[in-house]
């Protein structure tokens, strides 16, 4: 403590009343800080270690430097009270380096006044302190020691004095702990108190309020005046690096960086409130220090502690960036862990498809390169997330036997179960169809999952090498495909007796069938083709979304595998007149993209079969039907305006050339071309 302060200090005293008066302020803030308790406990443990060391070091000092009551920071408090410091026989270990005290040892600690302590309390020792802190508000403040400590370490940017306005000075003082620990030790370690001591040393009169922080405001100026600020937590510095006291040539870092990862963790923990940048009182204290004296020699244990604590933060050279370790490795790990949890999945190929695909391609490329070049295969870093076990399925509805109704079960998925409301029905005639459509739709959607599994298994089958596995997969696929086939065929809308129609009328069903077709057996796929052809008018007329074309590729594949007689059977459908209208499917198909494309596909397949050398096994009457159909189609096509098909097979004109005269062919060609906009190439 500076001697210079004493003359100024002697006169001042904080009126007794002021402190307890504002005690209610403190207690108000008290409740907010409860959650800091755990953090504070941690810090307390840490401090105990430090205290032990300090006691050894500084307790000795105190003994040696006889009339240095300042060695016991506890005394500081009471010094003011009684103005006659006496050495403590059994001082609680001072949290701050006693070196300042020892440095001021030839001092009049007695004359130093603790501005915040009530005057006129002659008692020293615990009793006195106890008295001092009998005031519950005071106790609360004192207990707030750890928070102060954490804040001490949490200095962000002291250079901006504008932050002072923002500081809620009460908050960092108010950290009541549930335990009723004697505040004795805490006081000593209370940075604020130490800070006030320091302040008093500097001759600044602290305002008469328990608001420790506002007196801190002048610190900024003092700091500027005094020179380089002290970097790091005061506590640490005092304990660990007294050398720092000696070296004001430390770069003027405006933000004291917390050293220990632990402290940093504490200060940046999610539940620790952080006020705005807080200027550490430590700086001033440091600035006032003279030669540390006996503290220059580190206790070996201390040295060890120091080296341990200092190893971890120094990952990369950070001397050029004083703010570089704001986010500790621990915090980074925490975030990484959190993100990893989010990435866990039972089926990464499903959940994280793009990443898996990408990685597979990279691996494939590397493997290729390895084969080509003989270079060392660099394993690209892969993120391996652990598989999670299936979460227990929750039961949203609990039905107790014998009870009426259901019990509402709240889970994280459904915190509030909705009341099962019965909605008023719309008009009757639409209701049934709509409901059935919805039912079919829900069936389709449930089956989609099965379809996805089929596709997934199929893909895996291609990659897996084990024969058993492959067989198993195939069985799996077949089973699911059968299930799909049977389910889709059974979904019947009220007014249709045909299989598959109900799902074909829904766009989702169409796309689903399109995806299912490649997996079906030839018979099954043929069946579907015939169903489609037979019901083409209905499908075309009800295809408001124009989703039919989605079926085309799959059906085309089916058609391409058709035998002649099967083909003929399907073609016959086109020319037959419909039961309830004059039109044929043919005429209707001409007006529909899908229908026309289907027709073209069939014709093309027929032509291919005929012109190929493969032996056909036509049934009786096939060829006649074929020729008839061709004529019929040709006539129709030349007469009506055609829409643009999805795909115009190239061998159609060849087909027509074979059977028709030149004029008709020419007309046909023009008609088709005008529709498509490109030439129907004749071979």
């Amino acid at each position, binding site marked *: 403590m500076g001697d210079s302060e004493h003359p100024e200090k002697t006169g001042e005293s904080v009126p007794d009343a002021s402190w307890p008066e504002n005690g209610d302020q403190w207690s108000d803030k008290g409740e907010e800080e409860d959650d800091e308790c755990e953090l504070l406990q941690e810090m307390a443990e840490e401090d105990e270690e430090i205290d032990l060391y300090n006691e050894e070091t500084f307790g000795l000092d105190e003994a040696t430097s006889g009339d240095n009551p300042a060695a016991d920071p506890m005394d500081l408090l009471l010094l003011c009270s009684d103005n006659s410091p006496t050495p403590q026989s059994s001082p609680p270990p001072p949290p701050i380096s006693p070196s300042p005290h020892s440095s001021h040892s030839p001092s009049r600690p007695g004359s130093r006044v603790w501005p915040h302590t009530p005057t006129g309390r002659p008692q020293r020792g615990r009793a006195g302190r106890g008295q001092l802190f009998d005031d519950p508000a005071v106790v609360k403040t004192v207990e707030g020691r750890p928070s102060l400590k954490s804040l001490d370490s949490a200095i*962000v940017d002291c250079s901006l004095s504008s932050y002072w306005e923002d500081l809620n000075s009460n908050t960092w003082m108010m950290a009541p702990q549930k335990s009723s620990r004697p505040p004795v030790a805490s006081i000593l370690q209370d940075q604020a108190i130490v800070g006030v001591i320091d302040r008093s040393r500097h001759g600044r009169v602290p305002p008469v309020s328990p608001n420790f922080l506002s007196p801190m405001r002048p610190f900024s100026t003092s700091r500027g005046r005094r020179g380089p600020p002290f970097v790091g937590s005061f506590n640490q510095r005092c304990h660990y690096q007294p050398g720092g006291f000696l070296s004001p040539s430390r770069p003027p870092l405006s933000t004291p960086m917390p050293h220990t990862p632990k402290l940093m963790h504490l200060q940046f923990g999610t539940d620790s409130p952080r006020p705005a940048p807080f200027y550490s009182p430590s700086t001033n204290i440091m600035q006032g220090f003279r030669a540390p004296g006996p503290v220059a020699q580190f206790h070996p244990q201390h040295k060890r502690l120091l080296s341990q604590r200092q190893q971890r933060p120094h990952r990369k050279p950070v001397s050029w*960036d004083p703010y570089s370790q704001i986010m500790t490795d621990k915090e980074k790990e925490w975030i990484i862990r*959190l*993100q990893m949890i989010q990435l866990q999945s039972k089926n990464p190929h499903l959940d994280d498809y793009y990443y898996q695909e990408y990685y597979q391609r990279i691996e494939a490329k590397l493997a290729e390169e390895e084969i080509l070049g003989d270079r060392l295969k660099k394993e690209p*870093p892969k993120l391996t997330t652990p598989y999670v076990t299936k979460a227990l399925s929750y039961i949203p509805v609990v039905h107790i036997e014998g009870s009426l109704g259901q019990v509402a079960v709240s889970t994280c998925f459904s915190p509030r179960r909705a009341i099962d409301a019965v909605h008023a029905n719309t008009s009757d005639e639409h209701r049934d169809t709509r409901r059935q459509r919805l039912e079919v739709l829900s069936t389709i959607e449930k089956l989609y999952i099965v379809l996805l599994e089929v596709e997934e298994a199929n893909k895996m089958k291609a990659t897996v090498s084990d024969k058993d596995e492959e067989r198993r997969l195939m069985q799996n696929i077949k089973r699911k495909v059968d299930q799909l086939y049977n389910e889709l065929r059974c979904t019947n809308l009220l007014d249709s007796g045909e299989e598959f129609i109900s799902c074909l009328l829904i766009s989702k069903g169409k796309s689903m069938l399109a995806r299912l077709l490649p997996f079906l057996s030839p018979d099954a796929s043929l069946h579907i083709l015939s169903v489609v052809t037979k019901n083409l008018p209905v499908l075309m007329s009800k295809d408001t979304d124009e989703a039919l074309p989605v079926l085309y590729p799959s059906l085309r594949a089916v058609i391409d595998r058709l035998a002649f007689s099967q083909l003929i059977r399907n073609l016959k459908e086109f020319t037959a007149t419909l039961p309830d209208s004059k039109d044929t499917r043919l005429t209707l198909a001409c007006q529909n993209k899908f229908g026309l494309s289907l027709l073209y596909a069939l014709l093309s397949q027929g032509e291919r079969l005929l012109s190929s050398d493969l032996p056909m096994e036509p049934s009786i009457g096939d060829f006649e039907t074929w020729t008839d159909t061709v004529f019929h189609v040709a006539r129709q096509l030349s007469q009506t305006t055609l829409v643009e098909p999805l795909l115009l097979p190239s061998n159609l004109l060849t087909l027509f050339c074979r059977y028709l005269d030149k004029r008709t062919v020419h007309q046909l060609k023009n008609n088709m071309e005008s529709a498509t906009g490109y030439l129907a190439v004749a071979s």
Partner: protein
Amino acid sequence: MNYMPGTASLIEDIDKKHLVLLRDGRTLIGILRSIDQFANLVLHQTVERIHVGKKFGDIPRGIFVVRGENVVLLGEVDLDKEYDQILQRVSIEEILEEQRTEQQAKQESERLKLQAVKERGLSIPKADTLDDF
């Protein structure tokens, strides 16, 4: 050190200068100091950069804490190329003035457009009633 290969993580961007584009259109340039699982950012020595045409101006802002959901994108600033740009740096007052002018011109053109549209009997829904998602 690659903490999480194959993922998008901001861990490696810490302590590097970044340009952050916010949803309200602001551009911030600062050193990324801290992040969390929501990609909330702590930017240090932040500067708000206003671009008007080929000019830009910087307003020093200090420390920013940005809520993750308000970030459109962010990217590391290449310190070598940072000053190597066609854009011309001007004073804050000038850029604010330019911005004001640009805003006025835009409003004027909008007004004219709206008037023209109204004259023809059409109507355009105002974008401010829509959500900005």
